């Protein structure tokens, strides 16, 4: 009975939504407000080779990405604080030799690709967060195949509380540095191209490494 009631409610909700979606400006038409207002300005100002999405993420709307990095940090500390104490660890899985060998073989290349994604984020598709997810995914893969202890071996124990905050801390540094050089927080100095590039890559690295540590600890908090 509840299923049919929920289905009725969901279709009831969908009717005004579909009507409103149909009334939106024609999908993909070049003269709708999206393409003629702020976005047109960003595209016109774009340098000759740059990933506009990363530019929007870090430069024009840096505050959103700062918030995003803080959101995932908040998720980590929330998970750490609400854990039931005394989890019973599952017995470490014994992987089949094929799976074990493949994972060991792939791990360094995974890490290389992740750092490539992080470092070239401002010119090619990719960026700090995608790299973090790949690195985190790598640790998760090792954790599932070889057991949580192996995954924990990836993480340095002493520097952990600092490393997991790398994302927000990198943004705070960029904010202060931007404030000094351009007079506005989170501003990237166009007149100092070397510093501009260094800040971009620095923030990407902070997000990448910080994010990877957070994804790994989220998995470890659930597993062990």
């Amino acid at each position, binding site marked *: 009975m509840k299923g049919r009631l929920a289905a009725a409610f969901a279709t009831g909700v969908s009717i005004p939504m579909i009507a*409103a979606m149909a009334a939106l400006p024609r999908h993909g038409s070049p003269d709708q407000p999206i393409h003629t207002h*702020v976005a047109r300005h960003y595209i016109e100002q774009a340098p000759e080779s740059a990933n506009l999405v990363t530019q929007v993420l870090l430069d024009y709307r840096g505050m*959103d990405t700062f918030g995003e990095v803080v959101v995932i*940090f908040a998720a980590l500390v929330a998970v750490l604080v609400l854990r039931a104490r005394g989890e019973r660890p599952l017995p470490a899985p014994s992987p089949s030799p094929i799976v074990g060998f493949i994972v060991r073989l792939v791990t360094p290349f995974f890490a290389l690709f992740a750092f490539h994604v992080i470092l070239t984020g401002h010119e090619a598709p990719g960026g700090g967060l995608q790299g973090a997810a790949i690195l985190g995914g790598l640790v998760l893969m090792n954790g599932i195949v070889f057991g949580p202890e192996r995954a924990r071996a990836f993480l340095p124990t002493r520097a952990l509380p600092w490393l997991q905050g790398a994302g*927000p801390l990198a943004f705070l540094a960029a904010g202060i540095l931007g404030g000094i050089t351009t007079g506005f927080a989170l501003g990237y100095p166009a007149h100092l191209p070397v510093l501009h590039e260094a800040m971009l890559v620095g923030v990407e690295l902070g997000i990448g490494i910080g994010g990877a540590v957070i994804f790994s600890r989220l998995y470890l908090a659930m597993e062990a």
Partner: protein
Amino acid sequence: MTPHWLPVLIAIPIAGGVLAPVFSRRTASVWGLGVLAATLGVALGLTGLLADGVISYPMGGWPVPFGIELRFDVLSAFATAVALISALAIWFSSGSQGRVTSPEGIAVLLLCAGGMVGFLLAADYFTLFVFLEILSISAYGMVAMSDERGAGIAAFRYLLMGAAASIVILLSVGLLYTLTGSLNMGDVRLRLPDGGLPLYLALGGFTAGFLLKAAAFPLHVWLPDAHATAPSAVSAILSGLVVKMGVIGLLRTPGLDQLHELLLWIGAASLLGGALFALVQDDLKRLLAYSTVSNIGLIVLGLALHRTGATIHILNHAVVKAALFLAAGAFIHRAGSRALEGIGRSMPVTTAAFAVGAMAVIGIPPTAGFTGKWLVTLGALHAGRPVFAVILLLSSLILALCYARFLVALAFRPARADIREAPVRMLVPILLLVALSLVLGLVGGRLAEFVGF
């Protein structure tokens, strides 16, 4: 106090939260108090600047529609209450061995405060959504900080409904972006079409989402379990501050005036429904939780009838409800269980503070609760809708009955021998908040001019 303090005001609590896990359990609470004291200082400084107009700050130096803008207006001044009540909640629970004072617990509290401050300062709809998520995820974690059996499922239910509300709000932000091509609040209002189905869907999405976050009737079902099973210091933050973010989100919605009638009836339903449900509760914290639903109803009603009165009640109710929840925490701490009959006699100071807080929630002058209720009642009479004035009076009477019944059970039953007065670290925050509620009550008139919508 140049506008550069706006990003600093957001950065301090968030940086504090990010660094909190580095500290040990003993020093984490001290770090939390220090960070929130700094936040309070900056917020007070900026509030002082408000006299000569709203402060705006373009992040990254990009002019308004192209970058993210932070604005400090009358509603943002609520950041002072956020910093103060969060700090008092940490002070209240310092020294206890629970999860609240663990390094991760202090990190969650600071991030929740930082999320709320960011939410109050955001003048960009997507930044508003991101900070709404920061404070919401921290709030889900805070509810689950208690060791009670029901805390897990209460926090999960709060999360499911809260996340659904957030995603509807994001859908509305996406719709506004499709219609106007911009995300800045001022710019969007200028470029909005006059009508059309997409605009009404966006408006409906915002309203439904924020009403759920504010726990207005009938979307309040997650609140009683969450606020009753959370630790008392956390309940003070949730009921006093987090729930208010939903109402402030409503005030940020473009075209809210078109929903005049809807706000009237939802407000009245919450006002009366909250009070009636409170009547049948036997557990003190569930009574306080339903009293919050009722007061949120008053604020939502006020949005339609007397916006200044509603805004003042946001601040007054935050202070008063925080005091009541902390007092409840002190009672439960000393009684060791939720059965609180007869412990009032051996805890005179806490009981007196609770009584004053109860008077304020009911709205008896000269306490803080009276100003908001009086202005909204005037608004109802001015608008020629006396039925709402009657509902206001009726709900106040019902709430008065609930609190009186509880106070009688607390103070006039045979005293229990083994109860001592609450420890100083609990009493000082409670008395500070009660004193503040009296001051706010006395200075109500001037506050109305300061807000002056």
